[in-house]
Every structure is written in C-alpha cells, then in structure tokens.
C-alpha cells in the first residue's frame, strides 16, 4: 500500500503511539524489577525514589537463602513439567483422531472439549478438593498436576487439532498406501511435521501451569508449594517486605515471559487459526 503520510505525521500517528504501547506493556513489570534492586531504606521512602543510588541484590540473596523460595521454584518446575507431559500425552492422540478421522460423535466431542475450557474453576475446585482429600492426593505433586490437567487437556486438544489440520492428509495417507502401519506413519511422518506445534502447545501448558494460582493453593500445602502460592503467603508471613516480594515476582515472571516471547508467534498461529480462517 502506498503511504502518503509525511515523516512528522507518521511519528505522531504511528511511532509515538507504538512507543507508548510498549511503555504501558512493560512499566508495571519494570517498576517491580527496579524496586527489587533498591536498598530497603529507599523502598520505604516517600516521595518515591525512582532509581536507587546504590542498586543491590540483597533481596535476591535473602530470598534464596532465608526463605523456602528455592524449594518452591523446584516444586513449580516439577508440577509444570508433569502437567506438560500428562497434557500432551493424552492430547496428541486425541487431536490425531479429531484431525484424521470422521466418526460418529466427532462434532459433539469437540464441542465438549471447547466448552470445558469455559467452566468456572470454582465449579470444579470444591469437589476436586474433596476427592483429592479422600484419595490422599492433597498436598502431593500428582494432586496439583491433575488440577492443572483440567485446563491443559482440553486446551491442548483444541490447539493441536488446528495444527494437525494444517498438515496435508495426503502425506500420511501416501505413507499408509506405501505399506507403513498406522503407528509407523504417526511416528515417522506426522509427529516430526507437527513437532513445532507440539512444542508450542507444551510451552503454553508449561506457562499456564507455572502461572496458575487457585488450584495450586487449594490442592497443595506444606510438602508441595508452587511459587505463586509461596509469594502470596510471603505477604502474611513477613508483614509485607516489598524487597523480598518484588525480587520473588521478578524472578518468577522472567523465565516464563522469555519463553512466551520466544514462541508467541507459533502459539498465536495455532490459537487464531480456527478463529481467523472463516
């Protein structure tokens, strides 16, 4: 398209708003990160000190040495990786069925998996708590992972189906005509082609599980405690030490944000494929 706008007009109409947009998107996080490197005296001063004279990593050192935070990080990692494995393990076959077969109940079942994404968590969390309690799964890794599977499985099925639909059916049909078994076709043809989509979906589950709070809080406790729950508890336990909290917040958010930025284009491709192509 020919753009006849002048240089200054472009600056005020596009570049400046775009810069403001970036500031809006980053400012709260940046403010948290800056606070985390301020000495305690600067944090507790009003009017606000915008940039500390002597930046310090003392809050990070405290957080890692004096609190349960390192163990919480490990718990979060174990839970998120397990949720990924469980979610993908069950959804890849299901998405394969939806993408490659026409069968009775296909439309109904797909609708169900979409609808399930929209159930309120409060609707599930009370009975899940009761059930986990009687099964002895409360405050265990499998308990929290099963909670996270409630959103991981339906979402992954939906996203993977749209990825698999993007891979021409003719490819795997040709392999089967050439005498490959169904399993061989899936393992040698379909899975390698779908790998980017599977990885993106896995990362999405990882991020969602890492960030999740309500299930983690209801279903965990002393033995297993994810970072999101631990951070929230710091408010009570340490009479709001903003240095510790902001350091913890910065640390928790950094890896997932980077991961998310890294794969966002693939993620969004899978997410919007169904909505945009109409």
């Amino acid at each position, binding site marked *: *398209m*020919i753009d006849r706008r002048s240089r200054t007009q472009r600056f005020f109409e596009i570049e400046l*708003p*775009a810069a403001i*947009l*970036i500031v809006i*998107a*980053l400012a*709260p*996080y940046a*403010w948290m990160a800056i606070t985390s490197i301020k000495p305690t005296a600067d944090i507790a001063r009003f009017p606000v000190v915008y940039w500390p004279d002597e930046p310090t990593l003392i809050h990070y050192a405290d957080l890692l040495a004096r609190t349960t935070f390192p163990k919480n990080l490990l718990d979060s990692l174990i839970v998120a990786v397990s949720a990924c494995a469980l979610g993908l393990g*069950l*959804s890849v*076959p*299901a998405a*394969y*069925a*939806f993408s*490659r*077969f026409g*069968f009775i109940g*296909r439309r109904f*079942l*797909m609708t*169900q998996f979409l609808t399930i994404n*929209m*159930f*309120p968590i*409060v*609707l*599930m*969390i009370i*009975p899940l708590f*009761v*059930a986990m309690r009687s099964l002895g799964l409360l405050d265990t890794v499998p308990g929290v992972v099963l909670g996270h599977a409630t959103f991981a499985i339906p979402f992954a*099925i939906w996203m993977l189906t749209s990825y698999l639909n993007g891979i021409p059916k003719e490819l795997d049909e040709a392999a*089967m005509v050439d005498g490959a078994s169904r399993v061989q076709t899936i393992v040698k043809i379909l899975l390698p082609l779908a790998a980017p989509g599977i990885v993106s979906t896995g990362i999405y589950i990882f*991020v969602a599980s890492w*960030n999740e*709070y*309500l299930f983690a809080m209801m279903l965990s406790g002393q033995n297993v405690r994810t970072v*999101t729950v631990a*951070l*929230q508890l710091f408010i009570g336990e340490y009479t709001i030490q*903003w240095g510790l909290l*902001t350091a913890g*917040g910065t640390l928790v*958010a950094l890896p*997932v*944000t980077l*991961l*998310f*930025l890294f794969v*966002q284009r693939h993620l*969004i491709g899978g997410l*919007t494929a*169904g*909505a*945009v*192509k109409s």
Partner: protein
Amino acid sequence: MVSSRLTPYYFLAPAILATAAIVLYPVASTLWMSFHDFVLFRPHDVPFTGLRNYQRLLADEAFWISLWNSFVWVGLAVGLQFALGMAAALILNESFAFRSFARALVVVPWALPSVIIGLMFTWVYDYNLGLLNDMLLRLGFIKSPVAWLADPDIALYAVIVALVWQGFPFFAVIILAGLQAIPGDLHEAAEIDGATRLQRFRHVVWPGLKGVILTALLLRTIWVANSLDVILVMTGGGPGYATHTLPLYAFLRAYSGMEFGYGSALAVVLTLFLISVAAFYVRRTMREAFR
C-alpha cells in the same frame, strides 16, 4: 488399510476418560452438593436440602452485591481491554522501524502470573509508598494520597485497571491476526476509489474483523467472569464486599467458610449465567470450524 470403525475412539479414550474424571465428575458433584448441606468435617452426614441453598442466596445481600460487581467487572474490564487491544492492533499493523520488537513486547502482560500482576499493582497503588500516589501528587492532580484499594468507592475500579492491563494483549494479538487476513489489495482499491480512512475502516476492515472480534469478545467475557485470582491477591474481596464478584464469593464461602453446599450453589448460578453466553459462542465457532 488396517482401520476399523473403532480406531478413532481408541485414540480418544485416554483424553475422554481423564476429562470425565477431573472435569465432568467435579462439575456433576458440585451440582449434587448444591442441593445438600455439605460440610467438610462431617462427610458422612450430608442431608438433602433441596433448593434451600438457592433460596438462601436470594435473601443474601452479599450475593446481590457480588452479582452486580460481576456485571460491572465484566462490562468495564472486557470493554476497556477490547478498546485498548483494538488500538494496539491497528498501530502494530502499520509498518515502522521497531515493529517486530513492539509486537513481541506487547504480549508481556499476558505471560505474567495473575499473582505477580496482583502484587505489582498492589505495590503501585500502595497508600504510603506507591508510585501512583507519588506521580499524581508531583503532577498536582491530587492534594493528598488516595487509598486506592481501601476506599470502597474506588477499589473495584482499581482492580479492574489491573485486569485490563493483563488482558488487552489478547485482543491486540487476535485482532492483529484478523487484520493480516484482510487482503491488501482491498485497501488499495478502496483508496483509489477515494475512500477516507474512516470509510475504509467501516467498509473494508470492520467486515473482515467482525467474526474474529465476536469470538474474542465472548471468549474473554467468560474468562474475565471466571477469574478471581487478581482480586483475591489485591483486596481479598474487601473492603467489606466492595470487590466481591460471584466466583470470588463462591470461593470464599467454600474455602474460608467451609460451606461447600452454599458455595456450590453460588458456583452453579455463575455457570448458568455463563452457559447462555457460551452456547452462543460455541454455536458460532462450530459453524466456522466445520465449514
């Protein structure tokens, strides 16, 4: 080809069984609990109470406050998320030097945990040490600090701002994808025909985006109506009932009050409201997904 009519069901069975156990069973038992007086500490004595939980809800002031807050919350949060996301998408669709950088960074709020978003905004809103009061005082907009989260008239809106920030990238990204699906020559043709920018938006961009926007709006409405972690972290529902929404009230009743029966009834009512929205949404997307 070695394939029987049952083959697809073998691939589906594990996912269906798991979903039945962790989603459908809990949903069914919430429904069951809502008709009973279920208290965790006497699991073997659960009297059937019929509709009593639902009757109680009609006379419960906190329920009505929460319901009203939920409407305000969904209307304002989704509306503003949409407006900001639309503006962001239109900007990011133009070409400029740092476009790919801007497109990547705008998703940051979406990637952050709700708990961290709650903490960040609580810190910005802090009465004594917060950035917001400091900036507004320096600029002369206010004369004394404002208790953003402790004032019952302001708290709900303060929390909504945090939620708008968290959710606008979703709209930005979905609408951007929709914009890119509109062929460029349509724009050119309209421009050659002498259409103004507003006319081009109305007749070229808007028809191409309608479907995407409707899907995004409905999906987001349901997510926002269900979300409670940001409020829980920022205000816990207070001061008083000022920031109670329906899911939060249901959760607090069950979690702190241990009144699982009543909490379940509240959850069921919330779901009934959402099903009407969801039915509309599902019908639409299904029509698109199965051309």
